[in-house]
């Protein structure tokens, strides 16, 4: 019952996503493209934090690394933008894996602090390599036009492009997490000693998870550079990393669909808060945050799962 409901929900969501460009304005579409970008980043962080139990307060750094990889490749060498996304993913995979190795020695809050340092450092590092990064001026890019003479606006094209990347990455993540690897990742979170006793190479898995997580976030950063058509250090401050963490908790930890809900939250709720009160938007945002946490302690995805489970129970009870 719940599985079928899930499949139905997925099909409906995909249909809505595909139809969106025909019903909403270019500006709204741009916002939904950003939702797609955030969803990929959140999925990456969720693999690490939700599934593997490693807290990162520094994923903004990988997002920045991905964004700058794309921007520099396009700006300096005119590399076609789809290739730059792959490059950003690979680079962040390596960077994440390497960062994951020393991070092995750190648990919980200590790891959170170490990653936090990464988030703090990145804007300054970007300014330091001015020749490549353009310093605090950043790098201005051009929005790609739709290929093959397609009759679509650049916003529509970028939306579908992002959606395609999102679907591919979500399917990959689902396959990864549903299988043996996924079980090992979760086992490490739940009980690292037991996992090791069962023959899981915890060190390797943790570093790999870090790498995969960083790769996802890096791809998201690369997409953001293309969608915004501009990168600058000020876009990647500490607050971005915190926003990602907020997104996965609100969306639902250890949940793939949670990344989408979380992305919708971090994209739209700050704007609503500003519409409600110009004087204290962040206070309103805080109220939303507390409200969500109170009503849905397992995030939006968790709440939906519970509603579905209850409906299923009622269904069986009625039949019996």
């Amino acid at each position, binding site marked *: 019952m719940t599985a079928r409901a899930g499949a139905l929900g997925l099909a409906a969501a995909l249909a809505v996503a595909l139809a969106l460009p025909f019903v909403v304005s270019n*500006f709204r579409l*741009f*916002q939904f493209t950003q939702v797609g970008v955030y969803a990929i980043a959140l999925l990456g962080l969720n693999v690490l934090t939700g599934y593997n139990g490693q807290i990162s307060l520094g994923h903004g750094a990988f997002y920045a690394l991905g964004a700058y990889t794309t921007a520099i490749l396009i700006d300096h060498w005119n590399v076609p933008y789809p290739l730059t996304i792959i490059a950003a993913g690979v680079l962040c995979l390596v960077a994440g894996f390497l960062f994951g190795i020393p991070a092995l020695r750190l648990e919980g809050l200590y790891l959170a602090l170490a990653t936090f340092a990464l988030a703090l450092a990145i804007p300054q590092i970007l300014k330091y390599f001015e020749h490549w990064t353009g310093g605090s001026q950043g790098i*201005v890019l051009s929005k790609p036009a739709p290929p093959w003479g397609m009759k679509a606006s650049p916003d529509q094209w970028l939306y579908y492009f992002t959606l395609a990347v999102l679907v591919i990455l979500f399917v990959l993540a689902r396959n990864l997490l549903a299988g043996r690897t996924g079980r090992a990742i979760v086992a490490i979170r739940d009980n690292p000693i037991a996992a090791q006793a069962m023959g899981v190479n915890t060190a390797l898995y943790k570093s790999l998870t870090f790498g995969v997580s960083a790769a996802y976030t890096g791809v998201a950063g690369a997409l953001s550079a293309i969608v*915004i058509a*501009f990168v*600058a250090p000020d*876009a990647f401050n500490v607050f*971005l990393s915190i926003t990602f963490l907020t997104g996965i908790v609100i969306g639902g930890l250890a949940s793939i669909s949670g990344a989408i809900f979380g992305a919708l939250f971090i994209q739209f709720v700050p704007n609503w808060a*500003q519409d409600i009160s110009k004087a204290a938007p962040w206070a309103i945002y805080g109220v939303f945050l507390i409200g969500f946490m109170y009503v849905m302690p397992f995030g939006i995805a968790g709440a939906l799962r519970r509603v579905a489970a209850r409906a299923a129970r009622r269904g069986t009870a009625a039949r019996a």
Partner: protein
Amino acid sequence: MLRRTVLSALVAVLALVVPATAADTPGVTATEIKIGNTNPYSGPASAYGTIGKVIGAYFKKVNDEGGVNGRKINYISYDDAYSPPKTVEMVRKLVEQDQVAALFQTLGTPTNSAIHKYMNQQKVPHLFVATGATKWNDPKNFPWTMGWQPNYQTEGRIYAQYIMKNFPDAKIGILYQNDDYGKDYRKGLHDGLGEANAKKMIVMEQTYEVTDPTIDSQIVNLKNSGANVFFNVTIPKFAVQAIKKAHDIGWKPAHFLNNVSSSLATVLKPAGVEASRGLITALYMKEITDPQWKNDKGYQDWVAFMKKYYPEGALDDQSNAFGYTVAQAMVQVLKQCGNDLSRENILKQAENLKNVEFPLLLPGIKVNTSATDHAPLEQEQLAKFDGERWGLFGELYDAAKK
């Protein structure tokens, strides 16, 4: 028969065309004009958010007094938290959803860079941006964008000229913030001195990061370099430290302090009046905490405005005078537009400011623009701190003439 068909077709076409011209003035109705803005009301640069607020307060005053040519200004200002992607989103909202007639005083260098191309593709006036970078005055490539304040390089050149004239044997030490702002000042000084002089005169350059706790060691290094002229390119927090430290270690160079930190209330007084005596800066606005303007009509009007329309705004924050003045310039542009508030005409009138003076600009400083000059303010005057006030001296320096 044919003629009738043609005629009716013509009428139909006309019917389509006539409302189309009305639609050419987005953001404008018979009773209002929409002006868009982004400001950092939250985030690392939120101290500047007061500029966005004081502008709103000034437009409210204008509206209370009947508006401009019978239209009220509908000022829509969003928070971008100084984050370029957020600026892009908010500006697209302003242009595509709210359909503002023009964008005005969007704040910050990286934030404006992010929307620079977009505004010019959309052909929406992008007026009087709140940043001291030089790139906004580029009407050839970006005809819809216009700066406002004198840029940092200009100011650097002013000091260079003064130094060459009055300190031919200068040994210059520079302290600057390691970013665009600092580098622009440094470049202005270098350019002003010329390559040969720069090489001969500049004995040491020191930098700091905006996140550094102190700059004490840089000051000590500069003193030890034997410099007798100090070019101090720092934001208020570090300016206070620099002035104090130089005084404490007995270094007494001719001390040039950038305009960014010229506030009596937030820099000179906290640093100490004795330590600040003799500082030289370049000004284009009346420094509102300077007692010499206490009885000035422009200043008093501003205080009365602040008390009535923006009572929570600080009276010792120069940003509030800055926002008030630039809002007056926007109103001037709208006044000049008369009844034609198309985007083309708004830009045309913004390019047609001729010798306009505003009450809080220094006496004699005039705003001038043209189709080839998108830098409204290009004049500044040097001033020396006498322990109580900035004493203006010398003639107005005009970057447009040199």
